[in-house]
């Protein structure tokens, strides 16, 4: 069953406004947090074991702990540049509960003692941008932002920044580059953004869902939070289900929830007469799972890592047997080719190369060795670049080719898709 912790009041339209939000206990947690010591909040988040919901799954409390104590101004940046194909949870959160995000950011900012924060929203999200901008204005007017918030002596300013269409800006250092008004190209690590980030000052970048989850942790305490989820992946998470299911959408379930149940129970299963073929469990950059693996998988960081896939941003793309894997890989490769920032050579050239190889297979001009070449090129793109985009392109390529090799080989030999054949026969 769905467990609604974050999304509890999302079905109420008034939750979007400050008044409505306050009606359901909004900004009460902030009052509580401002009464605590910043270190206590960090400790609570650490104890709750909250892991980043943006894709990498890095423990949030640990990330906050990396901030150096050198007296430099600190920045908090909310990563709302949701670009991973299949993911649409942040958009919903910003549209339905902008104040939840602002409250989470305020608590986090207080915990890391930051005086200025930014919400970086992807350029295409015009509607959420307007909503968040309005919500911030409301919060300023109500005294939740600005100088001396709720009389605690804590000052904080918040601003929204709108991107302009680049998937790579979802990577934290690229996001910071973009925020500085540069091209959104990732920066070299080390130094990590917690040490040298926005304008070379210590900066924490967190996903929308992560920051919203901070509210529930501080509200109920880490023990209550740990009630859901598994030992290593505690809490609930919003999964964006899309693809060939009857009821696609966002579903909040505890981590460790079986993938099978998500697809068949919550999402209403597949279209009648269709068989499950594959599932991409964490956005297009996660390695694909076969139907058989999907039956076994549970939605937590560990299980999926064991299956050599990843939870990523929680975008579950369900693929039924009417889809040709060559076709889908071509779409995915085109996406990474289009979105590579062009900085590191293996990614810049590799994504283009993969796109061309898969494209030529799709056109029926492929050679048998091309299938192996896809694997080889992907292998040498992985872990060779500044950011993880080249891995993100390589992992689906490898997994598609390895897990559906016969389909690729058929395509190369016959110059047409096996799937359409099967469907026609049926």
């Amino acid at each position, binding site marked *: 069953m769905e467990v609604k912790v974050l999304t509890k009041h999302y079905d109420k339209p008034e939750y979007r406004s400050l008044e409505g939000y306050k009606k359901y206990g909004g900004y009460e947690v902030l009052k509580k947090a401002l009464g605590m010591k910043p270190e206590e909040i960090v400790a609570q988040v650490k104890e709750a074991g909250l892991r980043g919901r943006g894709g990498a799954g890095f423990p949030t409390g640990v990330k906050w702990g990396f901030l150096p104590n050198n007296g430099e101004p600190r920045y908090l940046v909310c990563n709302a540049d949701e670009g991973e194909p299949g993911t649409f949870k942040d958009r919903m959160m910003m549209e339905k509960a902008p104040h939840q995000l602002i409250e989470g950011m305020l608590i986090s900012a207080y915990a890391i003692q930051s005086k200025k924060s930014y919400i970086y929203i992807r350029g295409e999200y015009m509607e959420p941008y307007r909503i968040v901008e309005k919500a911030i204005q409301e919060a300023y007017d109500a005294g939740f932002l600005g100088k001396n918030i709720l009389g605690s002596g804590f000052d904080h300013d918040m601003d929204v920044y709108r991107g302009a269409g*680049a998937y790579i800006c979802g990577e934290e250092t690229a996001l910071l580059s973009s925020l500085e008004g540069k*091209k959104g190209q990732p920066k*070299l690590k*080390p130094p990590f953004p917690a040490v040298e980030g926005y304008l070379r000052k210590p900066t924490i970048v967190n996903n929308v869902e992560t920051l919203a989850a901070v509210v529930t942790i501080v509200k109920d305490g880490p023990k209550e939070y740990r009630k859901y989820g598994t030992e290593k992946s505690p809490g609930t998470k919003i999964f964006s289900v899309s693809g060939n299911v009857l009821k696609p959408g966002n579903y909040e379930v505890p981590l460790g929830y079986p993938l099978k149940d998500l697809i068949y129970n919550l999402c209403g299963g597949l279209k009648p007469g269709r068989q499950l073929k594959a599932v991409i469990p964490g956005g297009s950059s996660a390695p694909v799972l076969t139907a058989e693996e999907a039956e076994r998988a549970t939605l937590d960081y560990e299980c999926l890592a064991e299956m050599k896939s990843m939870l990523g941003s929680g975008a579950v793309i369900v693929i039924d047997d009417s889809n040709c894997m060559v076709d889908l890989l071509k779409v995915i490769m085109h996406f990474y*080719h*289009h*979105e*590579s*920032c*062009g*900085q*590191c*050579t*293996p990614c*810049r*050239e*590799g*994504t*283009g*190369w993969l796109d*061309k*190889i898969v*494209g*030529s297979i799709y056109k029926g001009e492929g*050679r048998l*060795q*091309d299938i192996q*070449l896809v694997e080889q090129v992907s292998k*040498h793109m992985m*872990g*060779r*670049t*500044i950011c993880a985009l080249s891995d993100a392109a390589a992992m689906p390529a490898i997994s598609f080719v390895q897990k559906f090799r016969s389909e690729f080989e058929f395509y190369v030999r016959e110059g047409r898709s096996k799937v359409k054949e099967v469907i026609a026969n049926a």
Partner: protein
Amino acid sequence: MLKCKINGVEVEVKEGTTIIEAFKIAGQKIAHYCWHPGLSVAGVCRLCMVEIKGQPRLQIACNTPVQDGMEITNQSEQVKETVRWGLDFHLINHPLDCPICDQAGECGLQDQYMEFGLYTPEMAEPKVKKHKVVDLGSKIVLDTERCILCSRCVRFTAEVTKTYELGIFNRGDRSEIGTFENKPLENNYALNTVDICPVGALTSKDFRFRQRVWYLQERESICTGCSTGCNIKIYFNEEGLFRIRPVYNEKVNGYWMCDEGRNIYKFVNKENRLLKAKKGRKGEWLEMEGGAAAKDVAHHFKSLDKERIALVVTGQFSNEEYEALFQFYKKNVGNDFVYHWINNKESFEDFDGLLLRGDRNPNTKGLLQKLEDYRYEQTWAHLEENLKAGKIETLIVAGPENPLWFPDLKEKVQQWGIQLSHLIWLSSAKVQAVDEVECLTWQIPLKTFFEKDGTYVNYQGLEQKSHRIATIVPGALSLSEAAHLMAGEEYKVDMAPILKGPKKNYYVHRRGYL
């Protein structure tokens, strides 16, 4: 100091040294394109991968600082495989037009391919088409297909010159280096981008297509273009000099030099040189060898009135030459009519903030020191006065090597031609005005900095030695040789080897293989 082991070689490096620098210190080879010691770290070519003991993932050497006790290698199979693939990624969209590329022979891609590559390419898809032969102004031509986007040139214009002409536009494998709307890249340091470009994407218009680089020899020297005295490398062959590039010197020029300095080779080549000594006056010149002319001066010298002789010197010669010249003057003339010819009084103290100085003489400081040593304290006004009053009949002029930077040259020579009865003109440059003087004139060809040994003192007071490399004009003398011969002494003129014969493939000579 930190200790680390690089390919088994133990080295000690300073705190904060990156691994790639440690590789250079240890004298180990490492492939890299985007890293340049004079620029910030970009870490984008991903070729300088190394394996650090205890770390499963390969790291890039340019952004990883050395830690004590690190054991680093780039000889393992894993690294070699990675570099080979890294190179392949660089090459898949490279147009491979080496036959018409000026960089061929000194190209980073070619070098690394010989080192790590040597495979049959697997790329069977069409390459990305970009812009070729983009005109970036009067100095540089850009070829974006050849570009590997190492961003060295972009960082150069952003960090060194701070002129921000270049940028990388678009993204992915459509990225291109360029200037906005093809605006020219005209700053005075622009040609450094050509030097640091590891491939043939940026080529110099001046050097373009004139020689293949394997036909060129290279030797180090000192730039005589201004009082900074940048350390340079001269590229030349039997057909003459072709280009100049900077050589790293922390104290003087760092990694760079200005574009004006790169032109000084033109004043060494035969086209701009005084090839033969001449005696006579307008319309009636007698050509002779340099030594013979100097001896003729010596012969004639006895009949001149010593009190009516004066000496004009420019800051273009070496310390040794000034010494010999002043010795000669002291012994054979004895008066103190020695004048310092300053070419551009108004801009003499200028400085562009990087390297180029308004004082366009390599050795003004040395000359001033020598003048002081010999107590020659006359001012230029004094010379003008004496000339006007007719008190000076004979003028010995140690003229400029590079007449371009003496704008008042023509006017002065014309004036002297009227005022004097004898002119002894010592210079390496061909000067039209001297050929048209009316008084009895000896023109003695001098050697340029390329053909003689000498010490130059730059604006900081730093003494730098420049060595002779080869001879372009066989009959030319150095100023000291001329001084000795004019004094009537027997003196053996020494010469560097003359450049003649067909040009050779110097790569075979240098490396032992093609």
